[in-house]
């Protein structure tokens, strides 16, 4: 189920479940004879993870991750350089998948060595940093599908990550985006493609809710991506003939939805054979298009065609076939069946093993994470994080760069809702997941240029005419729901005109040039030229922004243990670190200065009071100087106003005294109490933390303390003032409770606290006298 962002619970709020009126497992419908579960279980039942389906392992249905009783024993028999038996099947009984793998997929020169190597030793070589990547790939080429499945099932969980770091083809990790919307709106597609390209995605995959719109989507994404960054590959995922046609016209530059399946029945149901797919693979290459195949656990199970085999074994067949037909790469890791894999024990381990399988066969890995596999934020993070940490050729085979509801592939495991989370994860671990921060102003410029360029091309070529208002809405839109009503027929007719008019990338380039977008035209021309050498047809190839090809040929992974392999270079690391939410002391100083008021001027040196109703409010050194707003958002003068009012309500008089020799709240409070005629003081730090002190207590003791500064309300400050007065009079205070919060209060405020305390510390002068501040203007 997809939850629109606007309806999703805010952090820390009550978390109502979508569809929570629906009974959850075990909660509302007790089994006959059983009692209603206790509140603890009912509470647990209400958590989001319980919206997910969990299947009992069932090898008969293929609902088993790593090993099924139905999986064959690994084995290979050759005669005169021909495979006559593979994984327990004689050549006369080979199905079409076996037959293709047996003829083309194995290196018989190493088969004897690979097949006789004990599984644990094979697995050790897969993992060990001392065994080079090339050696693992050489060995794997001689291993049958059942052998590799058996070996991968031996890897411990962390070893999967270690092996992935070593075995992925390209040294530099990368990422792919989905860019789609419910309306196929070209201006929004262009703006969102520019956005995805600017965020750092090196491949953009689009698709359509309405098939006939496809040519328009391809053109819009082509233009938008070129505006956002140079060298981004574009895919329009539709049925094969149309997809190939768009590629032939130069409008798209890669394809990846060439599906392979692990059983002959399901393969045939998909209306293909290994030979038709092999031919199609060559057809794409013949038109200069990069191409990878798509497979992954669960597809056969969903078609009731798993034939009692484990997910990993069936995928081992797919990957062996991918290599055999000469594809350069594989998109796997569940893909559409990711939730099926995730429903069985060990399912996530299986998904990661699939990616590793492709790497062991020397293929590009486009590592899944492209289908929302759980309603639980924790489970979907748990699914993705190990791959991001290990690094893959593409850590997502489609990060939903648009909102969940606009993703016409279905929501991805991470979406626009999660981009800031992902950027923070990159920064937390110092890893390169392919993305970067785009400054807000820059993003607005790029979106505007993309939408305007797209509009200009559509108008120039007579495809469609969009209004200024439509452009403005597309630039600002966070999703297609922000566009209001649009003319979807105009899109269809534009797409029809592109297809029937035989428009090619040259027409798009000419139109851009003639409508004033020469630089964008030049970029597309440069990319078109760069593709012609075919360097990007090599394994795991992407273009960088200088149009250099990074692939196993030009940028081979050289991980060989600690201190080796890819590590972000300093400029890239700086980019990863510089998320837009990061704040330094100077940012905070400016924020505080904006709240400054002409109040709290020093009026005299602080003197001891004589009146028994005199209560001193001691404040920290930067109050009235650099610190004007407390963590609750109240200004410091407002906080002081409430404290003074509380004192007055109980018949006491307050004075405000700034202590200049310490930032410690206990010492400030105690010093205030010692100045006060009543012997009672209130300590207040500029950030809002406050306490009541008495002249005879130890510095670290106090009578009342408000420690959770961000959550203190005006009423609570007033109560603190009143209670201080009651202490002064010897009366009974009305106990105040620290406000309760379930928010990640420290995560939110600790960086601000550090900066605020730095501002305070900067005003500390050892031995500097305290000074009384003006109360004028404090309400």
């Amino acid at each position, binding site marked *: 189920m997809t939850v629109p962002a606007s309806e999703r619970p805010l952090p820390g709020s009550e978390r109502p479940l979508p569809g929570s009126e629906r009974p959850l497992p075990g909660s509302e419908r007790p089994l006959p004879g059983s009692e209603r579960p206790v509140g603890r279980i009912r509470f647990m039942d209400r958590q989001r993870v319980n919206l997910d389906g969990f299947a009992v392992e069932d090898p008969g249905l293929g609902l088993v991750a790593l090993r099924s009783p139905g999986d064959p024993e690994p084995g290979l028999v050759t005669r005169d350089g021909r495979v006559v038996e593979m994984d327990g099947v004689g050549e006369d009984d080979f*199905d*079409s998948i076996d*037959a293709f793998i047996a*003829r*083309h997929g194995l290196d018989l020169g190493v088969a004897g060595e690979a097949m006789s190597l004990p599984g644990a030793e094979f697995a050790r070589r897969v993992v060990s940093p001392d065994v080079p990547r090339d050696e693992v*790939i050489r060995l794997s080429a001689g291993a049958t599908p059942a052998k590799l499945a058996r070996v991968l099932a031996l890897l411990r969980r962390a070893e999967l990550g270690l092996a992935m770091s070593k075995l992925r083809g390209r040294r*530099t*990790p990368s*990422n792919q985006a989905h860019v789609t919307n419910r309306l196929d709106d070209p201006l929004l597609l262009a703006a969102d493609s520019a956005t995805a390209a600017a965020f750092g995605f090196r491949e953009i995959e689009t698709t359509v809710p309405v098939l006939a719109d496809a040519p328009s989507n391809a053109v819009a994404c082509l233009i938008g991506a070129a505006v956002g960054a140079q060298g981004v590959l574009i895919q329009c995922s539709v049925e094969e*003939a149309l997809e*190939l046609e768009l590629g*032939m016209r*130069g409008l798209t530059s890669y394809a990846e939805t060439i599906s392979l399946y692990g059983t002959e029945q399901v393969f*045939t149901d998909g209306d*293909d*054979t290994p*030979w*038709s797919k*092999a*031919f*199609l693979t*060559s*057809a*794409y290459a*013949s*038109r*200069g298009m990069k191409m990878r195949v798509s497979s992954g656990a669960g597809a056969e199970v969903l078609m009731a065609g798993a034939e009692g085999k484990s997910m990993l074994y069936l995928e081992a067949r797919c990957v062996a076939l991918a290599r055999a*037909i*000469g594809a350069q790469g594989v998109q796997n890791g569940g893909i559409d069946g990711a939730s099926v894999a995730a429903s069985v024990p060990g399912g996530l381990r299986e998904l990661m093993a699939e990616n590793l399988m492709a790497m062991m066969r*020397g293929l590009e890995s486009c590592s899944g994470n492209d289908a929302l596999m759980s309603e639980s934020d924790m489970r979907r993070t748990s699914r993705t994080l190990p791959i991001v940490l290990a690094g893959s050729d593409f850590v997502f085979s489609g990060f939903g760069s648009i909102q969940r509801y606009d993703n016409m592939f279905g929501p991805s495991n991470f979406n626009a809702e999660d981009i800031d989370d992902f950027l923070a994860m990159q920064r937390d671990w110092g890893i*390169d997941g*392919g993305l970067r921060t785009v400054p807000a102003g820059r993003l607005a410029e790029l979106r505007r240029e993309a939408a305007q360029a797209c509009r200009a091309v559509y108008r120039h070529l007579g495809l469609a005419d969009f209004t200024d208002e439509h452009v403005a809405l597309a630039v600002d839109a966070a999703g297609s729901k922000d566009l209001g009503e649009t003319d979807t027929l105009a899109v269809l007719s534009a797409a029809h005109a592109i297809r029937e008019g035989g428009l090619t*990338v*040259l027409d798009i*380039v*000419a139109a851009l*040039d003639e409508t004033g977008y*020469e630089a964008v035209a*030049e970029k597309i*021309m440069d990319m078109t*030229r760069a*593709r*012609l*050498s*075919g*360097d990007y*047809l*090599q*394994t795991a190839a992407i273009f*960088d*922004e*200088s149009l*250099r090809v990074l692939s*196993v*040929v*030009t940028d081979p992974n050289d991980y060989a243990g600690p201190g080796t392999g890819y590590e*972000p*270079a300093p*400029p*890239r690391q700086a980019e990863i670190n510089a998320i837009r939410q990061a704040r330094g002391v100077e940012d905070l100083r400016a924020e505080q200065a904006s709240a400054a008021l002409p109040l709290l001027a020093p009026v005299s040196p602080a003197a001891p009071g004589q009146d028994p109703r005199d209560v001193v409010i001691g404040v920290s050194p930067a109050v009235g100087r650099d610190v004007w707003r407390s963590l609750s958002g109240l200004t410091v003068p407002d906080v002081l106003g409430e404290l003074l009012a509380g004192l007055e309500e109980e018949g006491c008089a307050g004075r405000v005294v700034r202590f200049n020799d310490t930032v410690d709240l206990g010492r400030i409070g105690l010093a205030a109490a010692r100045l006060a005629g009543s012997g009672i003081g209130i300590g207040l730090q500029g950030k809002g933390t406050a306490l009541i002190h008495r002249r005879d207590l130890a510095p670290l003791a106090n009578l009342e303390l408000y420690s959770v500064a961000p959550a203190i309300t005006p009423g609570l400050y007033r109560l603190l003032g009143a209670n201080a007065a009651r202490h002064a009079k010897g009366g009974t205070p009305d106990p105040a409770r620290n406000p309760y919060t379930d928010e990640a209060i420290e995560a939110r405020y600790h960086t601000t606290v550090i900066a605020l305390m730095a501002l305070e510390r900067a005003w500390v002068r050892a031995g500097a006298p305290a000074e009384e501040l003006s109360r004028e203007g404090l309400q």
Partner: protein
Amino acid sequence: MSGAAGVPGMAGEAGPPEGAGVHGLSGRPVSELTLEAVRRGELGLPDLRIHPDSLERQAAVAQAHGNPQLAGNLRRAAELTVLGDDEVLAIYEALRPGRSSPQRLTTLAASLAERGLPRCAALLNEAAEVYARRGLSG
């Protein structure tokens, strides 16, 4: 990712500088594929299509990097550059399950071999044999 940050030392195997010796399918050198040429209306799709020599060169690179299957695919692709789009799609269609008798596939293979596409022909012949055995013929 950001530009080339973190990709040192890749110049060695990056191949010739852009365009050196590379032609479009039409034979036009890539250095002539400029915006200026677009303005003059000189370019057509054949100028932008990959040349079989480029595919052959990539096949040799793939072979040298230990992937003979990718090399084989690129060599079949080089052969297919001479066929029109419709014909390519028609052969694909013929290879889908239940579309063609074994004889039709072998006939098609023979004509491809005759026209200088021996690798594609071999693929079709193999399909004919396996399809007959596995009931995938039409």
